[in-house]
C-alpha cells in the first residue's frame, strides 16, 4: 500500500501547476471565475481556453505523442483531473471530441477520418457534441428512433436528440441513428460524424431546474451525412459505443475530486457560519452529520483509489468502477441536502443574498442531475447487480 507519487509524477504535477498558474484566465485562481453570459462571448471564452490548453500541450495528455498527446500514464491522467478540479478550471468545451471521438477514430476510424478530424479536435477547431439520448430513449439507448435513410448516395437523417451537451457551440456531432430495424434492438444502429453546420440541424437549449442551459435539444430534419461519415460499419454502431466505453480508464476522476472539494467547502461553511454568535459546527447534530459525510465521501474516494489500483495492475478497468458513479452522484445529493439544511431558513436565499454567494443552493439543485445523467442510479444498480454480483438480468434486458 502506497499513496505517494513517484518523482516523475510529482514533476508532471508541478509542471502542470506552474503552467496553470500562468495560463488560467486572469484572476481565476483568486476566485474571479464568472463566465461570460452571452452565447458568443461564452463560446469564445471556452474556445480560447481550449486553444490555450492545446498550445501548452495540455489538451489531450493521454493521446499518443504521434497525434500530439503526451502519452500520459493513468496516474498522470488522474493527477491532471485532480489539478484541474483544484483550480476549478473552466469547462472543456471539446470534452466529447478529445475524450470520445478522437480515441475512437484512432482505433477504428478511416485514414480519411483521422486526417479530417483528429488534429482539428486537438486544436479546438472542431468542437464536438454527442448525439445519443432521445425523448423516448433515455436510460434505454437501444430505443432510439432517429433514422438515417440512404437516398441518392447520401444519408438523410430525421429525428430528435436531447441532452446534447454543448450542441449550441458544436461544429460536429457524434450521432447515433437507426439505419436498420432488423433483429435485436441494439442492431441496426449506426454512428455518424455529423456536420452541425447545415440547414437540417436545429439546436434549442434546455432550461434546467437550476436555471442553467448546459444541454440542448437537436432537431434533425433531412440532415445530411455521407458514407465516409460512418464510424466502423453501418449497423454496428453498438460495438463502436462499447469500444468507446473501454477507452475510459480514469473513470470519474473529476467527479470524485470535485465531490471531495465540495465537501471541504461545506465543512468550511459549517465552521464559519454562525448562529447566535456560535459557529454552527458546535451544534452536535451538524458535527455528527458532517462526520458521517466525511466518512462516506472518504470511502467513495478510497473506493476509487482501489479501482484505479486495479486498473494500474491489470491494464484495464475492473467492473467495480461502475460503483463509483453511483456512489459519487448519490453522495453529492446528500452533501448538498445537508448543506441546505444546516443553513436554517437563510438557506432559502439565493445568489448574492445567500451565504457563500448561493454556491450551495446552486450546487444543491445541480446535484439532482447527477443521479440521472450518464445513466440513472437505477440503471447503475442494475449494472452492478448483474455484472458484478451476477444476479439475473432485469425485465426487458
Amino acid at each position, binding site marked *: 500500500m502506497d499513496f505517494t507519487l513517484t518523482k516523475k509524477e510529482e514533476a508532471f504535477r508541478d509542471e502542470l501547476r506552474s503552467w496553470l498558474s500562468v495560463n488560467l484566465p486572469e484572476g481565476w485562481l483568486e476566485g474571479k471565475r464568472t463566465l461570460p453570459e452571452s452565447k458568443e462571448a461564452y463560446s469564445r471564452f471556452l474556445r480560447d481556453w481550449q486553444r490555450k490548453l492545446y498550445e501548452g500541450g495540455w489538451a489531450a495528455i493521454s493521446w499518443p505523442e504521434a497525434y500530439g498527446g503526451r502519452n500520459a500514464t493513468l496516474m498522470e491522467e488522474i493527477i491532471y483531473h485532480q489539478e484541474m478540479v483544484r483550480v476549478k478550471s473552466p469547462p472543456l468545451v471539446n470534452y466529447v471530441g478529445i475524450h470520445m471521438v478522437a480515441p475512437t477514430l484512432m482505433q477504428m476510424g478511416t485514414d480519411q477520418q483521422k486526417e479530417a478530424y483528429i488534429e482539428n479536435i486537438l486544436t479546438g477547431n472542431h468542437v464536438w457534441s454527442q448525439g445519443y439520448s432521445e425523448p423516448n430513449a433515455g436510460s434505454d439507448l437501444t430505443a432510439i428512433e432517429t433514422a438515417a435513410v440512404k437516398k441518392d448516395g447520401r444519408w438523410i437523417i430525421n429525428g430528435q436528440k436531447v441532452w446534447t451537451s454543448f450542441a449550441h457551440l458544436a461544429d460536429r456531432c457524434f450521432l447515433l441513428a437507426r439505419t436498420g430495424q432488423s433483429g435485436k434492438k441494439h442492431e441496426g444502429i449506426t454512428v455518424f460524424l455529423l456536420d452541425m453546420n447545415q440547414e437540417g440541424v436545429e439546436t434549442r437549449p434546455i432550461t434546467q431546474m437550476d436555471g442553467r442551459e448546459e444541454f440542448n435539444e437537436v432537431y434533425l430534419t433531412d440532415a445530411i451525412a455521407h458514407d465516409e461519415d460512418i464510424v466502423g460499419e453501418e449497423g454496428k454502431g453498438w460495438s463502436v459505443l462499447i469500444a468507446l466505453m473501454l477507452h475510459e480508464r480514469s473513470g470519474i476522476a473529476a467527479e470524485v475530486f470535485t465531490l471531495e472539494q465540495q465537501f471541504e467547502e461545506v465543512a468550511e461553511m459549517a465552521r464559519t457560519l454562525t448562529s447566535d454568535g456560535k459557529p454552527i459546527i458546535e451544534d452536535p447534530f451538524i458535527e455528527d452529520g458532517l462526520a458521517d459525510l466525511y466518512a462516506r465521501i472518504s470511502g467513495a474516494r478510497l473506493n476509487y483509489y482501489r479501482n484505479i489500483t486495479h486498473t494500474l495492475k491489470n491494464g484495464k478497468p475492473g467492473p467495480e468502477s461502475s460503483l463509483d458513479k453511483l456512489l459519487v452522484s448519490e453522495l453529492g445529493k446528500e452533501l448538498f441536502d445537508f448543506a441546505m439544511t444546516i443553513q436554517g431558513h437563510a438557506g432559502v436565499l439565493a445568489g448574492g443574498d445567500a451565504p457563500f454567494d448561493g454556491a450551495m443552493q446552486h450546487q444543491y439543485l445541480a446535484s439532482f442531475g447527477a*443521479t440521472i445523467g450518464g445513466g440513472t442510479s437505477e440503471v447503475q444498480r442494475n449494472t452492478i447487480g448483474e455484472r458484478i454480483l451476477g444476479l439475473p438480468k432485469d425485465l426487458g434486458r
Partner: protein
Amino acid sequence: MDFSLNEEQELFRSAVRKYLKDLGGTGTARATIRGDDEPARAAASGLAEMGINAIPVPEQQDGLGLGALDLVPVFEETGRVLLPGLQLETLALAVPLITNYGTEEQKKRWLPLAASGESAFSVAWYETGRSLFPETFACTATRIDNRYELSGVKTLVPVTGSPDLFIVGAEAPGGTSLFLVEASEAASVRPLSCLDETQLPAELSFRNAHAELLGEPGKGQDMLREALLHFNTALVSGMVGGMDELVKITAEYAKIRVQFNQPIGRFQAIKHRIVDMKLDLETARSLSHYAAWAVETGADDRIAAVHSARSFASRAYIKAAGDSIQIHGGIGFTEELDCHLYLKRARYWDHYFGSVRDSRKAAAGSLGWHARQTADAAPVS
C-alpha cells in the same frame, strides 16, 4: 370514531380545488416567477370572495369563527398549486396572534380587513445571524409616552402579496415583544433573491417606526410559540397538498413512460419508491388532520401532535419532491416540469419558523419525557 373531514369541509375543498385548477393550477405560481404578480393577486381576491379569509376570524370581526380543521382543505389545495401569497402568514399566524393577544381596538381595526381579504399581513421576526428564538433581538422598540418607536433591520420577511401590516418582534422594556407596524412605516424594503422564486422575502429596515404593542411586553416568544401551533398546522396542510400532487403526477408518469419496452412503473425500483412516497403522504396527511383536530379542540397532546406533523412532513415533502425528479428522469430535471417547483417550495418551508429538530424538541418537551423518573436500571453506554 370518525377520523375524517366532514362533508362541508370536503365540499369546500372541491370548490377551492376547482377554482384554482380553473386558474391554471401551478400557472399562477409560474406567473409570479416570471414577475407577473397579477394572477396571484387575482387568486387571492377570488379565494377571499369564496370566504377562505373569513374562516379563522371571529364572528365579532366579520369572520366565520371556524377552527383549524376548516383551514385544512384550503391550505391543502393552495399547497397543491404552490399558490404564492400571504394566506398562510395572514390567516394562520397574524390572525391567531391578533385574535388571542390584541386589544379590542386592534381586533376591530385589523381582523375585519383580514376576513374580507382587503388586507394581507406578514410577520417580520428573523434577524440575520440570529436563531429563531435568540436571547435578544437587535431590533428595539422604545417607549415614548403612550407609543412605541421601533428601529432595526429584519430579514426574510415575506412581502409577496403586499402586506399592509407587519407583526414585528423587537426588544422592548420587559423583553422580546410583538408590535403591530403598518407597512408604510418601513424605511426600506429590499427584496432578497430566493431559491423558491414564488416567494418574495425581503429585508426590512425600520427607523423610529410607529409601533403598537401586541399583547404583553416580554411575552413575544411565548405568544409566537403558541401562534405557531396554528401556523404549523396550516403549513403542514400545504405540504400535504404538494405531496398529494407529486404522488399523482409521478404515478401517472410511471404508467406512461416506457423504457426497456416496459412502463417504468413496472420496475420495482420505481414502483416501490412511489409506494414509499404514498406511505409518507398518507402518514403526513393523518398527522396533519390530527394536528388540526388537536389544535381546534385544545387536546392535551396538541403540541406533540402539531410538531410531529411538522417534523415528519417537512422532510417527507423534500424527499417526495426529490424522488419525483429522479423518477421523471431527464425531463424531471428541466425547468419545464413542476417537480422542481415543489422541491424549492419544500425547502422554503423546511425551516420556515422552525426546523425538524426544533419540532422534535418541542414534542419531547411537551410529552414530559424529561420529567425525572426513579432510575430502576443502569446501563453501560
